[in-house]
């Protein structure tokens, strides 16, 4: 039992460190600590409009979200992992070849995730946040905060495991149930107000500690996991779905376009992989809507900042996540024996990225119309296009076709933040000086093309 746990821990570490070296990955917790420290230092400014209760609310929900993301990777990441390592090579699949039950494996898997990500995310995040707070004269009880944030993280993780079990057992009905839950939540909160969000047990435990609430918070972690374990159904996909040849039809339609075959392939990858078009909704549109709803509150702290400008910059940055989807299912080894170079594949991905940018562009246009700023549309669209292009060029330069894993490298992630952060802030503050200065963002376009040119040269020499 302990051997399996021990091996899973090693496997997780080696899987991550194989992509960016032991040192690069070992430094990742330091990056997390630095980011959370910056977050707490920013309270010097944001503390004027955000109460401590709201800060704690944000922290606990952030960790809840991180836990859900870690758990979600077990579901949505399966295809990526299969693609990169082959299904049978992960210990999580070893019940097929070794005399170990799926329940034992799953239990080890959950415990491994909890401990591994405690050290990777939760601990450095809390250390960074508390240290930053001390520097600005705020005091948070470290052990209490670490405990409640850890519980919030585990709650997210545990609930996603439960949802995955529901999905595995009920299939499409389960999916319907999953979609129904947020709708019910929205209706519920609309009637009772967002104060209900403060009822999250780990947060209540921090604010009003008691044995009862500790038991409830713990139960929220343990119960979903136990239920998942009881109804565990590990699905090794054996079914062979049949699809009609959509490739031929679509390529013929787009025959005028040189990269049509790549674009159609990207579209088919996207639509046939787990999540399908839902990926746009959950990983792009929902966060964008949240940003749109919360921006006015956050910007109260810096009077004069143009919400639409900030929104266009943020959406431009978020749009680059679409590049990540496009490269998620491809490895260059699938093309290495064909008359193609890495830059050819990168160019094809950038073409598809340009087309996908219609979605965020539409969002920016709608936001401009909603804000009654029709006369500023040209400025805002230009800003969005320039930022989106610049951010994706930096992403391509730093990560090539391996974005998902490369950004876990401390060095790469730090370079990414340093290359994008100052530019994004610069654009926002330039617009604050004079809205017409938004046109200066046009400079980012040739810069982006230059970075892309350098990227192609850089990745051309990489070997598979």
């Amino acid at each position: 039992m302990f051997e399996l746990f021990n091996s899973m821990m090693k496997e997780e570490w080696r899987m991550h460190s194989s992509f960016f070296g032991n040192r690069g990955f070992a430094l990742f917790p330091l990056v997390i600590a630095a980011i959370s420290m910056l977050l707490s230092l920013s309270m010097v400014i944001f503390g004027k409009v955000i109460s401590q209760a709201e800060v704690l609310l944000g922290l606990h929900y952030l960790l809840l979200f991180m836990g859900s993301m870690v758990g979600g990777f077990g579901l949505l990441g399966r295809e990526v992992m299969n693609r990169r390592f082959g299904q049978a090579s992960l210990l999580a699949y070893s019940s097929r070849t070794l005399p170990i039950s799926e329940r034992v494996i799953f239990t080890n898997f959950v415990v491994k995730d909890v401990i591994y990500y405690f050290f990777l995310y939760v601990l450095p995040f809390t250390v960074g946040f508390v240290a930053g707070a001390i520097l600005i004269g705020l005091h948070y009880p470290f052990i209490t905060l670490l405990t409640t944030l850890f519980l919030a993280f585990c709650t997210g993780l545990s609930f996603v495991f439960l949802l995955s079990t529901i999905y595995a057992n009920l299939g499409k009905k389960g999916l319907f149930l999953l979609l129904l839950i947020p709708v019910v939540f929205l209706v519920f909160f609309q009637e009772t107000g967002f104060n209900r969000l403060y009822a999250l047990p780990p947060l209540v435990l921090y604010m009003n500690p008691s044995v009862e609430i500790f038991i409830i918070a713990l139960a929220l972690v343990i119960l979903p996991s136990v239920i998942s374990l009881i109804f565990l159904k590990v699905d090794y996909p054996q079914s062979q779905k049949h699809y009609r040849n959509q490739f031929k039809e679509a390529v013929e339609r787009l025959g005028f376009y040189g990269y049509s075959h790549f674009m159609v392939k990207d579209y088919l990858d996207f639509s046939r992989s787990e999540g399908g078009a839902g990926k746009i909704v959950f990983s792009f549109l929902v966060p964008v809507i949240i940003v749109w709803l919360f921006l006015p509150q956050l910007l109260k702290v810096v009077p004069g900042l143009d919400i639409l400008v900030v929104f266009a910059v943020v959406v431009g940055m978020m749009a680059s996540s679409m590049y990540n989807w496009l490269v998620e299912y491809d490895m260059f080894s699938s093309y290495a024996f064909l008359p193609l170079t890495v830059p050819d594949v990168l160019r094809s991905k950038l073409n598809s990225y340009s087309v996908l940018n219609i979605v965020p562009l539409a969002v920016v246009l709608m936001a401009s119309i909603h804000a009654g700023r029709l006369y500023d549309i040209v400025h805002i669209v230009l800003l969005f296009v320039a930022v989106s292009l610049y951010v994706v060029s930096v992403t391509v330069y730093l990560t090539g076709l391996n974005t998902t894993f490369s950004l876990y490298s401390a060095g790469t992630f730090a370079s990414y933040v340093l290359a994008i952060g100052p530019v994004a802030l610069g654009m926002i503050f330039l617009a604050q000086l004079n809205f017409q200065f938004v046109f200066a963002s046009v400079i980012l376009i040739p810069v982006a093309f230059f970075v892309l040119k350098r990227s192609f040269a850089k990745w051309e020499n990489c070997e598979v």
Partner: protein
Amino acid sequence: MITVKDLSKHFGDNKAVDTVNLEVRKGELFGLLGPNGSGKTTMIKMLTGQIRPTAGEITVHGINVLEEPLRVKELVGIIPEQETPPSFLTAEEYLYFVAKIRKLEDFEEKCEWWFSYLDFAGQRDVLCKDLSRGTRQKLMLAQAFLHEPELVIIDEPLINLDPLMQRKVKDFLKDYVGKGGTVFISTHILDIAREICSSMGIIYKGELVFSGSMNDPAIGERPLEEFFLELMK
């Protein structure tokens, strides 16, 4: 068709391929034999421009591979060791995709011929990720011959195929060479080499320890296995 001079590939201290000299003439079915980890796949990756050698020269089809790797990939059919067609295309869509990359016209009939010859028409509309290893290998064979190349380089051509399919592929390769094509295969299965190859090279720990005809006097009447094991000593 293939000329290799003083070819080496080092990964740190590991000499995966060390000062190999080799020549494969047009119309040959050449087998590169060697135990697991002897350097066969590294050789193939260098011959096809997928990785750059540490030292040496490679000419394929009269083209310097180091200078024009893309041109070599255009002319040659290549089947890599691991069959990795993109996951979310069906088998048929993948062949169409390869045909588009190779800018082929009138390829649909050829696809049909391969579906029929290798008996996987029933799997044509199944996603590549759901195909069995054997079917993926059939698919990779089909994509390598789709542009009717004069030279095909195959890493372990029969390893995932059942005996019936192995027979068909062997017959196809012999027929292809009979019509003037050239085939370079790597394998660790000696029987395959004995049955279909006209010449061979044996690589061991990165060094080419034998190169010559299957009728070379050094082999004589001995079983190939005996000769192979003797060289490994």
